[in-house]
């Protein structure tokens, strides 16, 4: 094969390959910027990634909890309405059916995330970030995971040591 023919053959291969790739992805998705996704981009990761600015204390959280959470989850996190989980839980999980609450979470970021994305149940995503920090602080405090005067913010929340930290075993590590 001459050099010219070889080059032609390569060019055809590249052209064909590109054509095939285009055929596999119709390319109908429209581009969007992360700025435009922001209203949905609420997830908070265990290392604190995506935590918003703001802060809150247990004292600030207590009245918000009484007003917006206690009807379902019980006053001060105890004796919830029938069918609902308490907010105060045990620190030891030695029975297979031990009720799991906040104390079971491996990371405190889970608490912040679920309050911000899902609560209050009847009017989700209506709390301010400061309110979510304050509620997180209050609930961690009544579970004796943080102190009564501890401030929760983007720096302190991921550092909270949960009772179950480091105790979880990945069930199927080969599938990750």
């Amino acid at each position, binding site marked *: 094969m001459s050099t010219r023919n070889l080059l032609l053959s390569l060019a055809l291969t590249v052209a064909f390959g590109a054509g095939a790739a285009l055929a596999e992805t119709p390319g109908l998705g429209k*581009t969007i910027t992360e700025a435009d*996704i922001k209203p949905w981009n609420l997830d908070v990761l265990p290392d604190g990634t995506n935590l918003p600015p703001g802060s809150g204390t247990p004292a600030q959280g207590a009245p918000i909890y009484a007003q917006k959470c206690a009807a379902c989850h019980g006053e001060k996190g105890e004796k919830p309405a029938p069918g609902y989980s308490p907010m105060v839980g045990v620190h030891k999980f030695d029975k297979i059916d031990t009720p799991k609450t906040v104390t*079971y*979470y491996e990371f405190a*970021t889970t608490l912040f995330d679920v309050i911000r994305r899902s609560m209050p149940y009847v009017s989700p995503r209506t709390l301010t970030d400061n309110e979510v920090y304050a509620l997180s602080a209050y609930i961690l405090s009544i579970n004796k995971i943080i102190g009564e005067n501890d401030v929760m913010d983007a720096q302190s929340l991921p550092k909270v040591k949960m009772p179950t930290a480091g105790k979880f*075993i990945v*069930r*199927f590590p080969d*599938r990750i």
Partner: protein
Amino acid sequence: MSNRTNRGEGSPPFTQVAGNGLLDRRALLGRGVLLAGAAAAGGASITGASAEPLKDDPWSLVMGSVSPPRQVPSRFEAHVVRTLSNPNHEFRNSHGRTPHHLIHGTVTPSALHFTICHSGLPDIDPEKHRLVIHGLVRQPKIFSLEDLARYPMVSRMGFVECGGNSAPMFSNEPIQATAQAIHGLVSNSEWTGVLLSTLFEEVGLDPKAKWFLAEGADSLALHRSVPVKKGLDDAMIALYQNGERIMPGNGYPMRLWLPGYQGNMNIKHVRRIKLLDQPAMSFYEAKTYSQITPGEKLWKFHFLQEVKSFITHPSFGHSLKGPGYYEISGVAYSGTGRIAKVMVSADGGKSWGEAALQGPINPQAFTRFRMPWRWDGQPVVIQSRAWDEAGNVQPLRADFVAARGQTERPVTNALAFPNQHYNSITSWGIDNKGEIKHVYA
């Protein structure tokens, strides 16, 4: 009578393959053989049924009713419905369980597919629904349903099973409940949609992306983390369920389907997928679908719905009408792949016979098994046990309890979830009157 006997002549005789009357599954191969078996087992009851001369019933003498645009089952099937955990629509989750003991085959009718809705059914306008893919990608993109409907699609049979299905069987004493109440949180459909790998190719994955979170358009914005490995393997953005658009309770207008993986991960009404370098540790993966195992060992990322089977016919809620021929049948499935073998016992596990498997046998899908059986009218305990193609075997109850534990007190509420991921065997005890109880054996 004599005809039936003649038809049976020349056929191989029924061979008992295991205790209490389990017959060779090859008996199911030919209709003639079955008829011979019926005659041999219960000839008197067959002749007794046709004592009166035949006549036309009223419905055979008039034109029937109008054909509706969308068919509904006969009024005589009104009892074939899902059971609901929250019929008054209180502010909490709601479950609808599939009536396995009242249906057959392998496809769960879409209207009877189980649903767990954590905040009701969102009323989504499909024209306004969007799926955005972003995070660790070369170019974030947003897709409408109309866009996705133009992509190359695939259709696959497959089950979806809640991680909490069969949870009442963690009880230290058998709860008296139907297969619907115990195992009703698994169903099987044909799913049609776009492979997630196709969409990943379009946005371009950053090599740092090891996980993705999927999030729904429901009021909780329910989200779960999934390894990218599964996303590239066989994950689907499903648009159709059994040929029609997905039911609202199953994720209308689009859901993530992860063949063989824990139900809650199959995000319904999926609106956002974000590529990540770590799992999000969402509420449902951090708490609800994580297990406590004996010795305070806590498990996370229990993705797989492991190999399992249960007998649907006969089962609790049925009764046998006297000795004679019956078919024992049920469903088997494995999150790992195809079902390879199902063994059935009628003597509480002392002896086992191999059941016939109804083909085609699809991976991560219901496989119906059938076992011919001649009941002699004495008390029996029937069980099934499945193997998958990877060699995984459904654990015996004693082994399962040793590894996973059981409650200290009996569970009396079939809606309770004492733990998650139960895949041991189910035993139905049949007494000499043909009444069926749930037993441990």
